[in-house]
């Protein structure tokens, strides 16, 4: 809504849950929201929507939420665009937050646009950095410079550019935020938040789609473009059976296995998993290049990854030119031990 900025206060985050389990993105958004709220001298409110979800409020508080608004209604049991849009738009109309953050998940990237269109404000997609600052960044004669604006930074144009976006005249300032990028705060058990129930009323109409079936199964092939962590193997892995080492590491870190073109051409892995110019372009938070030499076509598909760790026995492999951390060594010896160490660390 186009507004005098001062009417709108507070940082709100959408606490996404599925089957009454809170998605990790909710805690990440609270952590980032606290940083922004500190700069603005305000608080973080988590908005929880679902059915029978009261018990989830404490965990949001433990991760730093000052306040939790609960919209609890049977219509919100499974995610559907319309009732969730109604829930969030109603919360925004009633509480008037200055910032509203949503995870850039499969749900958030459907919900965010519909909510922003309903309340008439801007939405910046898939942000990787958020700051409070001035807009315009530098004073321009004849144009008012607004302070305490949300500056939303995101990659665009195939990762060729980085853009910083502001929403100076409309509130709330809305962003979807890429999962896995922002830091959660340490969990503090026992910390309580102010909890408030709010139900705007849900009346099904034509926009309520009917869920005929919910099929809970991991898709046969996970979309490697959506993965936060990729364990990618090349011809250096040696043979198809040896990909077990990569699968074990992927299971330990919550990652997904992908591969180079050489592996697809050899028939070891399906084309869906191929990274590169003739495969998929990926930008995970962490990209492990295991036994991948790094042909230019492969690099084009993965060099935008936030952190690249390469293991290769050939110290002249071009992959080392783009890797943040390159290890010249034997993957057969390193991987099993790394997987064990990660498991031990996570259990401790």
């Amino acid at each position, binding site marked *: 809504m186009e507004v005098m900025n001062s009417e709108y206060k507070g940082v709100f985050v959408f606490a996404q849950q*599925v089957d009454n389990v809170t998605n990790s993105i909710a805690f990440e958004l609270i952590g980032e929201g606290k940083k922004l709220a500190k700069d603005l001298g305000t608080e973080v409110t988590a908005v929880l929507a679902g059915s029978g979800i009261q018990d989830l409020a404490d965990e949001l508080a433990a991760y730093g939420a000052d306040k939790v608004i609960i919209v609890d209604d049977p219509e919100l049991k499974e*995610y559907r*665009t319309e009732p969730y*849009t109604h829930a969030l738009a109603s919360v925004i109309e009633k509480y008037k937050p200055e910032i509203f953050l949503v995870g850039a*998940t*499969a749900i958030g990237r459907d919900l*965010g*646009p*519909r909510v*922003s*269109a*309903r309340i*008439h404000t*801007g*939405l910046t*997609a898939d942000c990787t950095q958020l700051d409070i600052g001035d*807009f315009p*960044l530098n004073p321009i004669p004849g144009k008012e410079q607004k302070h305490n604006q949300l500056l939303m930074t995101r*990659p665009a*144009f*195939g990762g*060729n550019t*980085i*853009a*910083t*976006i*502001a929403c100076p005249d*409309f509130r709330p300032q809305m962003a979807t935020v890429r999962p896995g990028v922002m830091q959660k705060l340490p969990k503090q058990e026992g910390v309580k938040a102010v909890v408030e129930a709010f139900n705007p009323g849900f009346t099904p109409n*034509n926009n*309520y*789609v*009917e*869920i005929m079936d*919910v*099929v*809970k*199964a*991991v898709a046969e092939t996970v*979309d490697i473009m959506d993965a936060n*962590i990729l364990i990618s193997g090349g011809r250096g892995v040696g043979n198809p059976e040896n990909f077990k080492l990569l699968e074990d590491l992927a299971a330990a*870190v919550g990652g997904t296995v992908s591969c180079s073109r050489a592996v697809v051409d050899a028939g070891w892995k399906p084309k869906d998993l191929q990274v590169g110019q003739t495969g998929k372009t990926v930008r995970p938070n962490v990209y492990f290049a295991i036994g991948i030499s790094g042909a230019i076509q492969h690099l*084009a598909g993965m*060099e935008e990854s936030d*952190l*690249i760790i390469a293991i290769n026995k050939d*110290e002249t492999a071009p992959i*080392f030119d783009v890797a*943040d*951390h*390159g*290890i*010249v*060594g*034997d993957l057969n010896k*390193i991987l099993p*031990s*790394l997987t064990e*160490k*990660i498991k031990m*660390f996570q259990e401790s």
Partner: protein
Amino acid sequence: MKIVVCIKQVPDTKGGVKFNPDGTLNRAAMLTIMNPDDKAGLEAALRLKDEYGAEVTAITMGLPKAEDVLREAMAMGADKGILVTDRVLGGADTWATSQTLAGAIRNLEFDLIITGRQAIDGDTAQVGPQISEHLNIPVISYAQNIKIEGDSVIVERQYDDRYHVLKAKMPCLITALAELNEPRYMTPGGIFDACKAEITVWGRDNLIDVKDSDLGLKGSPTQIAKASDKVRKGVGEKVTLDPAEAVDYIMNKLKEKHVI
């Protein structure tokens, strides 16, 4: 059945990116293609046409040269092409773009609107759902296996760990992914016909129920503060280590970055 497919002419991002002085994209200076997700959406529409019979209208908003993607769509099998172009529409963000397309689509009869999930230039995935909101119709994003049953569309909608089989009353908007299908090639006859076909060109005055304050750069709630070419990463660290040291080294990096 009448299907409207929204397509976008996008810069081929492999060719590098150029900007105007105000930070907006200089589209005129770049090579262009039909956005891949939109092409999958068009293919989905053409398959529905093959199976159930339908009139498929391709619509695009852009510079006059965006006519090229409409001709491509018609050469693939679309029945009509509509170009929405006007100086006042330039510099639009997703709010202003979705308002423009919704305003144009209000001229048309439709049962189904199909858009691509997202364009490879902006990567926002916002315009499809926002059009549906402006038109007050249901949206189903990330559609797979689209079927028609009476006055409803039945679609599989993929999430991280599950899919929903959804039934929505038409009119309805669905967004398609490039992985949905393998788009057909243009046929020689199709290319011949498409070259001669008439493209409908609409401007600001053809948009229904849209305010001037919702259009173009001025109607865009989001504004670019800064845009820059991505700074290429320098060469990182390269170390030669025995396996035990290598494991400790990687563990430290993963902990530093909060990966584990």
